[in-house]
């Protein structure tokens, strides 16, 4: 290497930059999981009058599934609703006894509808409302509308501002790395000037710097990828308490190749691009 100290400093700064970027990606993944969990909980329930024919309900289910906004529709039959109800109240003798006295199942079959995007639930609910199916008793969306609207608004807000924060932080990290590389190349300006004056072409001069940029990118991308191992090993048990549905340490191991690839890729692009720009101004001689 041309300059051991500067190379080391450059690789360290780039490693930190890539670590920040990788951390932001992991935070994005975690946020996605949390948001997905929340979104999964938002749905529309449609209740059918007792003794509605199952085939009529299936027809409605099919027509709902054909809608492009709908992600999935699950059917819970009267019997299943009853079984669930009994299970929930199995310690309440009064209710169980009261149920036993009825000769008919009083509970209603249900369709649970999930939308691909919770903001589209309104359209689905309106669709059902307009069809005026005689067997539909009620649609609970209208009861929960305020809560659902507020929740999906918050989700969209978190997603957008999170993305903006990630971009800003990543941009800052990249600027720091870019400036470090510029300083490294500034220290070689006299050398570049000499090369220029003895008749070296721009590409001849750039070549070694770009190569160095590639090497710095690979080294720091690899280092950052490795650095996540111990860090996640320490952090993920704590995260697991907050976000039980994903173990970051395991997730990272499963996606190590992708992460390593992304970090090295970003590192190489950052290194080559910064070197190219930084050398450029000294070639104008």
């Amino acid at each position, binding site marked *: 290497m041309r300059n051991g100290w500067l190379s080391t400093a450059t690789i360290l700064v780039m490693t930190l930059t890539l670590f920040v970027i990788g951390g932001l990606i992991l935070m994005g993944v975690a946020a996605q999981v949390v948001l997905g969990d929340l979104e999964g909980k938002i749905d529309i329930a449609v209740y059918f009058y007792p003794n509605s024919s199952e085939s009529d309900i299936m027809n409605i289910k099919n027509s709902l599934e054909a809608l492009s906004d709908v992600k999935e529709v699950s059917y819970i039959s009267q019997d299943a609703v009853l079984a669930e109800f009994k299970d929930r109240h199995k310690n309440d003798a009064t209710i169980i006894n009261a149920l036993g006295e009825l000769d008919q199942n009083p509970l209603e079959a249900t369709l649970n509808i999930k939308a691909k995007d919770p903001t589209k639930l309104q359209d689905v609910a309106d669709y059902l409302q307009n069809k005026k199916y005689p067997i539909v008793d009620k649609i609970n969306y209208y009861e929960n509308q305020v809560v659902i609207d507020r929740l999906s608004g918050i989700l969209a807000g978190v997603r957008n501002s999170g993305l903006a924060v990630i971009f800003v932080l990543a941009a800052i990290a990249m600027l720091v790395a870019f400036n470090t590389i510029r300083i490294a190349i500034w220290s070689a300006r006299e050398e570049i000037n*000499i*090369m*220029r*004056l*003895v*008749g070296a*072409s721009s590409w*001849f001069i750039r070549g070694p710097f770009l190569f160095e940029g590639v090497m710095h990118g690979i080294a720091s991308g690899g280092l950052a990828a490795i650095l996540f191992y111990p860090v996640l090993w320490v952090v993920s048990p704590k995260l697991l308490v907050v976000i039980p549905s994903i173990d970051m340490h395991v997730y990272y191991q499963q996606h190590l190749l992708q992460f390593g690839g992304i970090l090295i890729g970003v590192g190489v692009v950052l290194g080559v691009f910064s070197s190219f720009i930084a050398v450029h101004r000294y070639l104008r001689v």
Partner: protein
Amino acid sequence: MIVFDNISKIYTPTQFALKNVNLRILPKEFVSVVGASGAGKSTLLKLLIAEEKPTEGKIFLDGLEVTSLGYGELPKVRRRIGTVFQDYKLLPNKTAFENVAFAMEAAGAKDSDIREDVPEALGLVGLLDKADNFPHELSGGEKQRVAIARALVNRPEVIMADEPTGSLDPITSIDIIKLLLKINELGTTIILATHNKEVVDELGRRVITMEKGEVVRDEEKGKYVI
């Protein structure tokens, strides 16, 4: 042939660094450019390799208009003109051999040619035994010899030297000038910017005298007149 056609150079608006300079330098000439510090000698040489651009006028190298070339085309001109500087401008982390080889690599020479020509150039300047030394292991005169070897290794038509003896003691200076004369006798045009009076008077070659950016005297077999 090198032609300076009505060249003016202004760095700062108040003052001409060069003013209406017209010159012709023929192949195989040995030309000294003399004048007080600030007279414009360095600027004249920098314009020839397009390190600076003139404010007005044109410069030709064998019919090629140097002043109209873009950055991409400059290396071609610079490989035809070897350059020697007062401060040597050697790459500090390369040996004498590598410094000379570098100019050939930059010009796209083959490895086999490099292995043959670099020792020849170092031999010509009398430094073959120091080929593996780094610049900081060489004396001023030796560094300047390496720089001269680098300047001539691509067999340029012209070698221009800007105060090559400016940092050297008188005896070493004479050695360097003798070396330039020897290279000139082998067929290379030499342009030497200097304010070393003894050297110029000894040479008995063409002398161009500059004052405040203008050519005030241009004599065959000239003397350094102040």
